[in-house]
């Protein structure tokens, strides 16, 4: 099975600003933002009160009453995004073997919303230490163990091959796709439905990020709250969403004349082995992940046309990653456009890595680099070309996307525009 290459042939996105690839790309290409004051619950007790929420009605997007009852919101977002990707890829017409089809779902925090909501009920508002299990909903086990998300995506895809959740914090969305790519390359599957989903906008998530002052306390002008690389940035804006892909072996995609958005040519992950939440300023481990991903893709730093940054908008991240780009890409770091779509769609934890891969594939599709919104005056220590405010027409054939997360995980992925394979 050596030499198997992996292509993206279908994309589905559910992101703040709209459900579907189309509204997602218009948001990004128009440089609009989807961050707003929290509406899901009363945010007034919290330090950070803005988020990038999705106006999402599961019924409107085809989920049945039983699906809605049993699934956490993150699973619902996943299934809707996966279905869009499946339709987009027309893979159903290809007659693929279910046993050679798998599914991988990335998620950082699983069914947080369900767990938060239902704990409140069984503990009667935290009063009962010995919770009353008779108030637990029937599918609570599926919230306890988030592999239920992978089961849902597998069912919707008809997958009977390898199926799993990848949960590496905020790099989950890259690592899930990277894992799926490996499974195709090694021959364990021919088609993988892979992506990531998180729906963390709930009181417990806000509270824990408040406690470490990781989210922005900015409340005025919520649409301008997420400011990666800007000198005035002071934390990230929590988001939610999902993005899924149909991945398949490139030669068979070509044989069935599928539309190929991109080839996933390189992927690597490393750990900083330093701190659960902290980052060393030198970016050495992210740089190592970037180097390894480039090596797997057999590319040089100068080949990269666009870098999709993690760009969370925390002080430490933006410097860490700027250092990592300089360390891994050398002089080219100063020439290549770098941007953070978190400025527009917020930081949806484990999901964002896949949402950013979708943005990269669409950037290649449209030869347009999405901007970093809200970037008016860059931090002097962040001195690269971050494509401020407006999207830029730019020949985009080779893209690097990176992620960095709690636990010390640093991941990098390289997407290329494949020439038609020999098949």
């Amino acid at each position, binding site marked *: 099975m050596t030499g198997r290459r992996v292509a993206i042939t279908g994309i589905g996105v559910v992101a703040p600003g709209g459900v579907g690839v189309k509204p997602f790309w218009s948001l990004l290409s128009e440089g609009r933002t989807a961050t707003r004051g929290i509406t899901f619950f009363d945010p007034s007790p919290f330090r950070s009160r803005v988020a990038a929420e999705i106006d999402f009605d599961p019924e409107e997007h085809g989920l049945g009453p039983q699906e809605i009852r049993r699934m956490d919101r993150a699973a619902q977002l996943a299934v809707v995004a996966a279905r869009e990707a499946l339709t987009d890829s027309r893979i159903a017409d290809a007659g693929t073997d279910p*046993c050679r089809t*798998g*599914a991988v779902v990335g998620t*950082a925090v*699983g069914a947080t919303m369900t*767990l938060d909501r239902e*704990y409140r009920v*069984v*503990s009667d*508002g*935290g*009063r009962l230490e*010995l*919770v*009353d*299990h008779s108030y*637990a*909903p*029937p*599918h*609570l*086990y599926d*919230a*306890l*163990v*988030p*592999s239920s998300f992978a*089961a849902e995506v*597998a*069912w919707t895809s008809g*997958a*009977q*091959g*390898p*199926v*799993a*959740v*990848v*949960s*590496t914090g905020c790099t989950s969305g890259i690592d899930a796709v990277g*894992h799926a790519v*490996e499974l195709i390359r*090694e021959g*364990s599957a021919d088609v993988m439905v892979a992506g990531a989903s998180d729906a963390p906008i709930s*009181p*417990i998530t806000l*509270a*824990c990020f*408040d406690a*470490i002052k990781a989210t922005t306390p900015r409340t005025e002008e919520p649409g301008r709250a997420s400011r990666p690389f800007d000198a005035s940035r002071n934390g990230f804006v929590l988001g939610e969403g999902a993005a899924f892909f149909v991945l398949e072996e490139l030669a068979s995609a070509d044989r069935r004349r599928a539309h190929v958005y991109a080839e996933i040519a390189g992927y690597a*992950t*490393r*750990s*900083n*082995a330093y701190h*659960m*939440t902290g980052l060393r300023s030198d970016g050495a481990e992210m740089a190592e992940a970037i180097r390894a991903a480039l090596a797997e893709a057999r590319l040089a730093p100068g080949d990269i046309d666009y870098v999709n940054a993690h760009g969370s908008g925390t002080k430490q991240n933006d410097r860490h990653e700027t250092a990592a780009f300089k360390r891994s890409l050398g002089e080219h770091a100063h020439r290549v456009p770098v941007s953070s779509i978190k400025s527009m769609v917020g930081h949806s934890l484990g999901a964002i890595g896949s949402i950013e891969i979708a943005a990269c594939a669409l950037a290649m599709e449209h030869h347009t680099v999405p901007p970093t919104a809200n970037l008016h005056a860059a931090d002097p220590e962040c001195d690269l070309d971050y494509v401020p405010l407006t999207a830029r027409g730019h020949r985009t054939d080779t893209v690097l996307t990176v992620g960095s997360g*709690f*636990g*010390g995980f640093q991941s990098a992925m390289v997407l290329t525009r494949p020439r038609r394979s020999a098949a």
Partner: protein
Amino acid sequence: MSAATQTVAVTGLGVAAPNGLGKDAYWAAIRTGTSGIGPVTRFRAEGYPAVLAGEVPGFDAARHLPSRLLPQTDHMTRLALAAADWALADADVDPARRDAFGMGVITAASSGGFEFGQNELRKLWSLGSQHVSAYQSFAWFYAVNSGQISIRNGMKGPSGVLVADGAGGLDVLAQARRAVRKGTGLVVSGAVDASICPWGWAALLTSGRLSSSDRPERAYLPFDRHAAGHVPGEGGAILILEDARAAQARGARVYGTLDGCAATFDPAPAPGRGAESGLRRAIELALDDAGAEPAEVDVVFADAAAVPALDRDEARTLRAVFGQRGVPVTAPKTMTGRLYSGAAPLDVATALLALTEGVIPPTVNTGPDPAHGLDLVTGRPRAAELRCALVVARGHGGFNSAAVLRAPR
């Protein structure tokens, strides 16, 4: 030998199990059929419909870990950190003396640091959001054990976390093997799980798979006509995986090699449809991956759900692959309860010890239903010449994984 077929060896075991803390205590208990199942002590469970658990005995976290780590870790992370320390010591590896990027950590999880999360949720809803700990941002999430183990041991290579309920414990070993084959010299893998707390109990109960018995010797009876669910447990095993040649070159003791891995998923459930599960494919793919015929397998470590339909499916599958009573089958987890993601790594550790010692540990308490047609090793351990073991693990929702292990050549 190409990278794709390069042999990967297990060189270190760290065990935290309900019937033994540490590999030696565990193996001594397992060989004598000593169970660790008893009444729940971690909280007052008397009022719940399930009252038994397999709890890890005698673990004093402060004795094993620096006090800086205690406020920020859930019980299961403390167990995992200690088990990782023991596994590295068992493998005679000093991480400080190796290339940091040449070591990775790939663990499975099921419910994360659920007790830690429970306590913070309680503070949130009873006292207010300002009372939630700064450590909640990571102490309960699924990636916490891989992160903490990598930090404690300075491991910067490829790391990861998989969740596939009970099957994830084998999937991570497969993933660790991939990482070794792609050039990472050493990977710390396996899983340790624990969610024995009131909130975890409420969630586990909704699976409908917990035994309601209050008699430890009657509560978890896989393949028995009286099978009626399982007893939850905590713990698991951490394993050290290395390239077999490199392990040999450094003179490491090799417990065995991980020669076959596979994972499949059941067809979507549909009312009234009894479709064949994906378990047989998982076993056959793992055997194929190992280049093994069914006849080569000397012992099977079963998933042993103790849910009648699942027991029937597993027994039918084993008969289909190995024939009626065609291979000795055992479920030492009858002595620990089911450890969720921790169960399969512990079964792999047990299988490797069995290969080393030439003895099949027993399935306790069960009186096998002859209708299953299994040669279930019950009552006493069975001495046997063992060269090859199959470990089976399944997860809620339809996950099936299998692994083939061989004794060192």
